[in-house]
């Protein structure tokens, strides 16, 4: 086993897993409130475009990330109004949101295509040679370092706070939650705004940390992978960490194996992360019923 491979897979899984983790955490919170958001891909795109645009305009990638969080939250607020406020079908509204996100991000990003930006700085330990293996393993941007605390915070929020208890109750049985004095729709709005902000940050990591580019459709399906990872994670933010690292690692590994010249077709190589996702869902799928929020996908239309 060569050292480059090991370092590359570890660093690669962390780098490409980060945006997935933020997006997955957002979707976990939304689904805990009983709402499936298939528009996550669109939210991530809006986040990526807004972050890039704001970075180009202000010169600060940190402001870019903040802009992405607000833009993602705002876009998800529209979704929340449609499904919570107007009781529209969640799947249809989510897919519409995705297409809206594709168009909106193109509009936001268009004037900035080809703009050179200074991305989020790599915060390396002092003494590590830039460009070397040490800096590759231990020099990440702030969003990478904040990813784990964000997952822990989300877990705490869902499982250790009164707000989280209410959220989970709404996701299991909104009518019962209402009867118990909670306001399901307000909680769902709050959850979706939080989820949108995280989805936006996930997109921002792609554009202002990983690639320093804005290109249309640059999320390339990662929003949908994140939705699959929610099921893998059993709606638990801590398992989401494992899911994001596993998927990021699979992608990193197949690229490293190609770079080494492994005797496998590149077409097969590029399928492996998705095959792995399918495999994991098959193996884990049997216990899905018992952990999924019971009212997932069903709209609460109030009590007569």
């Amino acid at each position: 086993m060569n050292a480059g491979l090991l370092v590359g897979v570890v660093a690669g899984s962390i780098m490409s897993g980060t945006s997935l983790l933020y997006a997955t955490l957002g979707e976990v919170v939304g689904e805990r409130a009983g709402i499936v958001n298939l528009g996550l891909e669109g939210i991530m795109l809006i986040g990526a475009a807004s972050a890039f645009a704001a970075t180009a305009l202000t010169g600060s990638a940190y402001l870019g990330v903040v802009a992405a969080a607000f833009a993602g939250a705002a876009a998800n607020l529209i979704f929340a109004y449609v499904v919570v406020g107007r009781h529209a079908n969640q799947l249809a509204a989510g897919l519409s949101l995705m297409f809206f996100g594709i168009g909106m991000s193109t509009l936001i990003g268009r004037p900035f295509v080809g703009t050179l930006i200074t991305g989020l700085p790599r915060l390396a330990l002092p003494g590590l040679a830039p460009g070397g293996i040490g800096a590759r393993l231990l020099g990440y941007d702030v969003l990478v370092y904040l990813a784990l605390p964000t997952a822990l915070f989300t877990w705490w929020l869902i499982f250790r706070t009164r707000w989280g208890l209410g959220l989970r109750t709404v996701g299991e049985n909104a009518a019962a939650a209402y009867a118990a004095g909670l306001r399901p729709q307000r909680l769902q709005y709050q959850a979706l705004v939080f989820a949108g902000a995280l989805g936006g940050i996930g997109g921002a990591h792609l554009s202002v940390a990983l690639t320093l580019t804005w290109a249309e459709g640059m999320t390339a399906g990662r929003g949908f992978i994140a939705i699959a990872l929610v099921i893998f994670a059993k709606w638990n933010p801590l398992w989401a960490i494992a899911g994001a690292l596993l998927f990021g690692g699979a992608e990193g590994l197949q690229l490293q194996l190609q770079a080494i010249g492994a005797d496998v077709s590149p077409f097969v190589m590029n399928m492996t992360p998705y095959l792995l996702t399918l495999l994991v869902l098959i193996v884990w799928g049997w216990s899905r019923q018992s952990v999924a929020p019971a009212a997932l996908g069903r709209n609460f239309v109030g009590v007569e």
Partner: protein
Amino acid sequence: MTRLKMMAVACWALLALVAAGPAGAQDKPSLIVGAVYVGSVNDYGYNRSMKDGLDEMKRNIPGLKLIEAENVPETAEVQRVMEGMIQQGAKLIFATSFGYQQFAFNLAKTHPDVYFEHAGGWMQAPNFGNFFGATQSAWYAMGVAAGKMTKSNTLGFVVGVPIGYALGNVNAFELGARSVNPKAQTHVVVTGGWSDKAKEAAAANALIDQGADVVTMHVDSPATIIQVAESRKVYSIGFQSIEARQLAPKYWITGLGFTWGPFMTDTAKSVIAGTFKPAMVREGLGQMMAIAPFGPAVPADVRQLVTASADKIEKGFNPFTGPITDNTGVVRIPAGESWGGDKMGNFDWYVEGVVGKAK
């Protein structure tokens, strides 16, 4: 009733104004040219090269009017966009993406008085021609540059989609590298898409992790990969637009770009003169392809070597002259044979020295 009448009169007046406005406002242009792009023209890549060529044409021909549409998908949508350009008076249309071919061809049949030029295709009609750069032979010169600059003898090549033309580029690159450095090997990583930026970044990183100290690519826009290489202090070679050098002030070696301007100018002139002739135009270095300026790290002797090899290619040197063996030891082009322009899409194998699997 009177209110209705007044509204009707107002509407008519408005319509008359709209109709009269543009027609009376300006002189008739010498030629209206339509151009459709699949991406944004600021991508430092393929679309930028097309835009630069069309702008050059516009500068060369007084009174020429250019109508452009960016981000047009390769679906029936492009046919509607081009139809709209014809309604606005376009007599020449450049369909600059491969997937536009059938849609442009449909319009050529129904609009025999409008001329079409398609990038990269093969279809022809009295008012429909196509053009592209002969990229493969030009890549040989890039290989010469990489072979001289590498210290690890490991070159990295990120390929979007492994179509025959892309594999041909990789092969010519390795042949060029070997011509000056027999130990040079090209490692290939395929991302599976022309514009998956996050995967391009990861692929470039993977190649660098595996020891590549020169990275190059065949994807839509080279911007991401060049920036990754620069951030890891690794040399890069660009492709598509020679402007990509701005992305790597320190570690840029050189690059290949398309120079469509002269061809586009000649085509527009032929339409104005009524002498348009459809053809399948494929031109290489010196015509539709150019080598980008060298970066500051490239020593004089390497510059000379690359320029000399480019001259050789301009004068007709063909890198794909047998005997050429693939990377599994099978002779693919026997001694005395050579592969020319029409075979460049046929590669489904890599030459000896390329590390990777073609299919």
